């Protein structure tokens, strides 16, 4: 299997800045979509695809023993499309077709049109169950592949998440890692007001998960946590891993940060110019 070339923190930082720019561009072009949750997730997704995940180097053919990434918070998919474009699974040019009639880049991940997204998601709460099935299937075949599943913090208000949270430890799926992109916001307001989810780490620990608590924008912490998933699995540990990643909604664009109105509103061309100038200033 081809292994991912380990990128340095500096390289990952530069990549994720480029992806932030692409996210703004494609959402502006599409005139709709979710910037807040895409920008909060992009650092973790970048680290996964460019540093930790294995078997995803070749866009020509999907390797059977590849690591899997399921984006359960499907509305954050522009972040994934940016990464897939850089990886060559889709073309950079294709990003402009986001949400257009006939495009493979549907508003939420569509496994039929773009198999590398692994699961069709968008109705929240379902991705972790599919990830569990992937992990069980890979384990049955004695494959070493890992399955990563990213959820939103509002998303885990869904009951099905807790069914999976209970079920995954029963099957001792140490090849499964659930990542919570905890950006604190959802459509109707702050998660803490809409439907409180804390104490989140205690809850997952009580359900039988190994919990790692990180800053979801700090590449050193992200890389260390993801690496721990693999070493624990290879060591024969039985517990699945839950990574609580504290993130900022709209991260990297100051006027979007922690602003609920940027959950599901696309930037206008003026906003985009401002946002991109700010992202570039940091490069």
């Amino acid at each position, binding site marked *: 299997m081809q292994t991912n070339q380990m990128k340095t923190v500096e390289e990952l930082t530069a990549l994720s800045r480029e992806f932030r720019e692409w996210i703004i561009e494609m959402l502006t072009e599409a005139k709709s979509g979710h910037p807040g949750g895409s920008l909060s997730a992009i650092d973790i997704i970048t680290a996964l695809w460019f540093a930790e995940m294995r078997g995803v180097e070749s866009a020509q053919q999907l390797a059977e023993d590849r690591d899997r990434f399921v984006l359960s918070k499907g509305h954050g998919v522009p972040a994934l499309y940016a990464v897939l474009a850089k990886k060559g699974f889709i073309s950079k040019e294709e990003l402009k077709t986001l949400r257009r009639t006939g495009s493979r880049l549907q508003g939420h991940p569509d496994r039929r049109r773009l198999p590398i997204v692994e699961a069709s998601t968008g109705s929240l709460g379902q991705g972790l*169950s599919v990830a569990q*099935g992937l992990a069980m*299937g890979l384990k049955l075949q004695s494959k070493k592949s890992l399955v990563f599943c990213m959820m939103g913090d509002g998303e885990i208000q869904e009951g099905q998440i807790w069914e*999976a949270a209970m*079920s995954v430890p029963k099957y001792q799926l140490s090849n499964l890692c659930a990542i919570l992109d905890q950006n604190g916001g959802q459509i109707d307001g702050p998660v803490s007001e809409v439907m409180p989810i804390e104490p989140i780490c205690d809850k997952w620990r009580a359900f039988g998960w190994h919990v790692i608590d990180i800053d979801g924008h700090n590449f050193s912490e992200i890389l260390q946590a993801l690496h721990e998933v693999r070493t624990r699995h290879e060591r024969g540990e039985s517990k699945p891993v839950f990574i609580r990643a504290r993130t900022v909604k709209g991260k990297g664009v100051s006027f979007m940060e922690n602003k609920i109105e940027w959950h599901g509103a696309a930037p206008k061309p003026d906003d985009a110019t401002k946002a991109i100038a700010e992202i570039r200033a940091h490069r």
Partner: protein
Amino acid sequence: MSKATRQAFGEALAKLGETHPEIVVLDADLAKSTKSELFMKKFPNRFFEMGIQEANMIGVAAGLAFTGKLPFLCSFGAFLTGRFDTIRLSVAYSGANVRLIGTHAGVGIGDDGHSQMALEDIALMRTLPEMGVFQPMDARDTELLMDYLVKTWKGPAYLRLTRQNLPNLYPEGHAFDPLKLTPIRNKAGKTAPVVLLGTGGTLCEAVKAHELLATQGVESEVWNATALKPFDAETTQKLAKAARLIVTVEDHSVFGGLGDCVAEAISRLGQHAPLLKLGIQDQFGESGEPVELYDKFGISGQEVARAVHSHLQTIKG
């Protein structure tokens, strides 16, 4: 000889497990009732007890299918199809090659009452693109259908099974084709004035009605639908052109089930026989003796014959 189709399913699944290592089975704490326990006892390593978590079970089955397995996930039809959004997205829209097994179809389960009765499952599953919807008529049909679902069918499929025993009605020597209506009681070359169509638990009631009507001087014929989707519109249209009355009998809501399959098929014709849809008429199920419930809901042989008589009167009038 009579057998519940859930029993025939369990036996067929355990047998197919021998030659199809890709088959895995999931159940949500109802393995004894759905008869998936027959597979569990034989292949414990390929059986997953998922607990009382139908939605998670559906998603897990989809994930297993994406790694090349052929998952059979089993529960009562009411509970399974009740998790419609999960089936819609994680299974259907994802193109997951899974077999959804819903047992305890209709008021035929009796005592347990409405909450346990699958009464809208066919309607729900028929709305999902590419989802196959099947309901076998007896043990033999179940066995043949299971073979078809493992070896031939691609993509998701829903299989609806009965709790109660059903008599053997599969015609001897008939060439199996689940996608075609099966003639059960008919005379070749001539369509009877009354065509009775049954599916699953009600086919035997349609046959009883056919026999009763014969003693009353009304000529009828009986057909079975194993596939509710894709539905055999071609045969249905032929029958509806030649008959005076077409009657559907089903242990399911009259909305979206067999009756509506027929209605959809014949609505394209300029002229066709009137359609009488017998089934659960915009009402809830209830506890009781299955035999009494079939009478009460108008789907027993006797009630079907009565309804046919009275409808023929109105046509004449």
